[in-house]
């Protein structure tokens, strides 16, 4: 292996809080333009694709109901799945956290004697930092999804669940291909323009070499069917089909919330997932496999069931709805905050509104970024409106804000603990309390309003402290000479 850095840089252990990270993105004009163009295009297409189905609301309700039912009986369905996969010739491994999952996969690859794997785009393996773990063990992991390839070649981080290179435009992609492909395998053809077809062809030629050579593939899965042990991968490019059929060994790392009870349940998600994610009636490739079949596809199949904070999330009655997520990314595409801040600001492989409720639950609210994510939203509700499994993201955001601001009960590592309020909120807490005390005493409120009205000509152009967040970009509202309450008392309370 060459000295080329093959791993996708993991998200920094100490990510800055969301507002600071977003500030950089907001000022990056190219990034803003790329994101605006891409999100608005997908957003409009999704709206049209969804509008075609007269029973969309019922499909949405059905998807929610299936997921809720499964989560309520998750223990039973996971055991059923384990038995079905095993009976079909697969091997099931259970991983409590990222380290355990990485160790299992690394050992499985080592046991084959191979030094490289091809990968199908997978959020779960990104969540656990599998590429970095494999790299440390001297195993090269090649991403084969076009956008993931762009991200990997660019030593970059994904910024979107479905379109990880959404922050890149064509010219940037061409430059990355020309500079980096040669160090990884087949170089980009010369000359290379920035026409999408040319770029896709360059990627196709580069990847083909890897598909034909690889003996081991690593994937995730969109769904796992408990009754049959069937794994399901939805994709658009055909790279998944290559990885899932050509190699001798297939290892799938899947979050435990991805299970559905019956094959028939897929009927719902086959309709809602493609329309919500790529705005297609049907995705180009849906690959399903059940264990192993002699002479057809991989001869060894390993399923690594990943917990990594999911059981803890399941313990929370309000927060658990985040586990219904099918990773369609419709919420990212409609989110006005994501559109301006970009995916990297969320400091996680799960950006956007769903990331803002998943990361602080899977990882806890202990870090600066995780404590700031629940606040990275105006609560405008656009995400809830488009979610195909009806996750009330604003409700969970406010719930997690409570966890940060007030503390309260939470489950970590299977143990129920009571969190204290996050650090650095003394002033905010005092202000909220003072405001409440004032607002709960109309007499005092009236006096304060009068004081404010009398001092209104002295209103400063800039406010101190947290108030600076207002006056840095906006003028203050003018305080009225007379409050409504005083007007009413003067005009209406007198006997007429």
């Amino acid at each position, binding site marked *: 292996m060459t000295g080329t850095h093959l791993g996708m840089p993991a998200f920094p252990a100490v990510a800055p809080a969301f*507002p600071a990270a977003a500030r950089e993105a907001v000022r990056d004009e190219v990034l803003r333009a790329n994101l605006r163009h891409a999100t608005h295009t997908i957003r409009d297409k999704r709206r049209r694709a969804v509008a075609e189905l007269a029973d969309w609301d019922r499909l949405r309700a059905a998807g929610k109901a299936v997921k809720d039912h499964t989560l309520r009986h998750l223990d039973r369905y996971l055991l059923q799945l384990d038995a079905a996969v095993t009976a079909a010739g697969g091997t099931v491994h259970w991983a409590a956290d990222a380290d355990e999952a990485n160790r299992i996969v690394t050992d499985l690859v080592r046991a084959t004697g191979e030094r490289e794997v091809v990968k199908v785009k997978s959020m779960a393996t990104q969540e656990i930092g599998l590429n970095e773990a494999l790299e440390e063990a001297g195993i090269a992991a090649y991403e084969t999804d076009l956008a993931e390839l762009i991200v990997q070649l660019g030593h970059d981080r994904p910024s979107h669940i479905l379109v990880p290179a959404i922050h890149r435009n064509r010219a940037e992609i061409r430059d990355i291909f020309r500079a980096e492909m040669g160090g990884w395998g087949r170089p980009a053809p010369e000359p290379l323009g920035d026409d999408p077809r040319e770029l896709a062809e360059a990627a196709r030629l580069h990847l083909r070499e890897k598909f034909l050579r690889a003996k081991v593939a690593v994937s995730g899965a969109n769904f796992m069917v408990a009754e049959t042990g069937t794994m399901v991968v939805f994709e658009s490019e055909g790279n998944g089909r290559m990885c899932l059929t050509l190699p001798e060994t297939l290892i799938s790392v899947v979050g435990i919330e991805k299970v559905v009870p019956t094959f028939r349940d897929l009927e719902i998600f086959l309709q809602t997932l493609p329309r919500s994610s790529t705005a297609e009636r049907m995705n180009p490739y849906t690959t399903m496999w059940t264990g192993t079949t002699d002479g057809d596809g991989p001869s060894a199949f390993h399923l690594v069931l990943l917990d990594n904070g999911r059981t803890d999330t399941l313990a929370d009655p309000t927060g658990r709805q985040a586990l219904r997520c099918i990773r369609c990314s419709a919420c990212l595409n409609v989110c006005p905050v994501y559109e301006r801040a970009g995916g990297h600001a969320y400091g996680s492989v799960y950006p956007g509104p769903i990331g803002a409720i998943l990361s602080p639950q899977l990882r806890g609210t202990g870090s600066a970024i995780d404590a700031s994510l629940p606040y*990275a939203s105006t*609560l*405008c509700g*656009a995400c809830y409106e488009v979610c195909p499994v009806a996750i009330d993201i604003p409700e969970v955001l*406010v719930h*997690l804000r409570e966890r940060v*601001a007030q503390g309260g009960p939470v489950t970590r590592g299977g143990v129920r603990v009571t969190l204290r309020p996050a650090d650095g909120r003394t002033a905010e807490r005092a202000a909220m309390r003072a405001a409440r005390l004032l607002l*709960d005493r109309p007499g005092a409120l009236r006096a304060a309003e009068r004081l404010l009205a009398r001092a209104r000509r002295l209103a400063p152009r800039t406010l101190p402290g947290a108030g600076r967040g*207002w006056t840095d970009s906006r003028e203050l509202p003018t305080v009225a000479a007379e409050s409504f309450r005083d007007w009413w008392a003067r005009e209406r309370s007198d006997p007429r």
Partner: protein
Amino acid sequence: MRAALFVTCVNDALYPRTGIAVVRLLERLGVDVDFPAAQSCCGQPQYNTGYRYETEPLLRRTARAFDGYPYVVTPSGSCAAMIREHYPRIGRKAAEEGRGGELAAAAASLAPRVYELTEFLVDVLGVTDVGAYFPHTVTYHPSCHGLRALGLGDRPRRLLAAVKGLDLVELPGAEECCGFGGTFAVKNLDVSTAMGADKIAAAAGTGARVLCGADNSCLAHLDGLLRRADSPMRTLHLAEILAATEEEPLP
């Protein structure tokens, strides 16, 4: 018909003219308006920032202030959504935490009686032409909580379209959030400002001189940006346009 005005704390202190407009408008339509002085803030800033316990006394106060009124009308989609959507949640959580059913009962009693102004006009009074006169070009920004939490739909636009002399122009990307978001506006200043800047640019592109809304907190954010940019566009609450007549034009 008797109705209580829930003016909201923002309007009370900063935009009394919106409250006065609601009073004039409703009285013109034959409603007997009362202003229970015990009211203050619905607690939305506290609740949405994560301080649910600080919200509870305000829930209790608001419910008590409007006890007995068949209709509670408020010129804010956001505050109406707070009462209708979040008060029952706060009540349920208090009960789950073993603190009794008092808050849940207060929420359940108040929530169905609360109407955002345009709901009250269109659904309860059954009017869209309120006899208003406003000879200006206006564009309308539907604030998110009115649009998505309450589902106000085209009620505000129907009311505006019926105003004599008013030329209503569509705001491109109207359903997109303006970036206010309560404490979001100060906690995430940069994103909030970027969203607001896009919103006022879209409004300016319509050629309208008036950017109308039904939530003064969103309008305070947009107005602050417009004035910082020395824009000739002004923001105006829907109630003030609907209150204006040929005899009594907007002051």
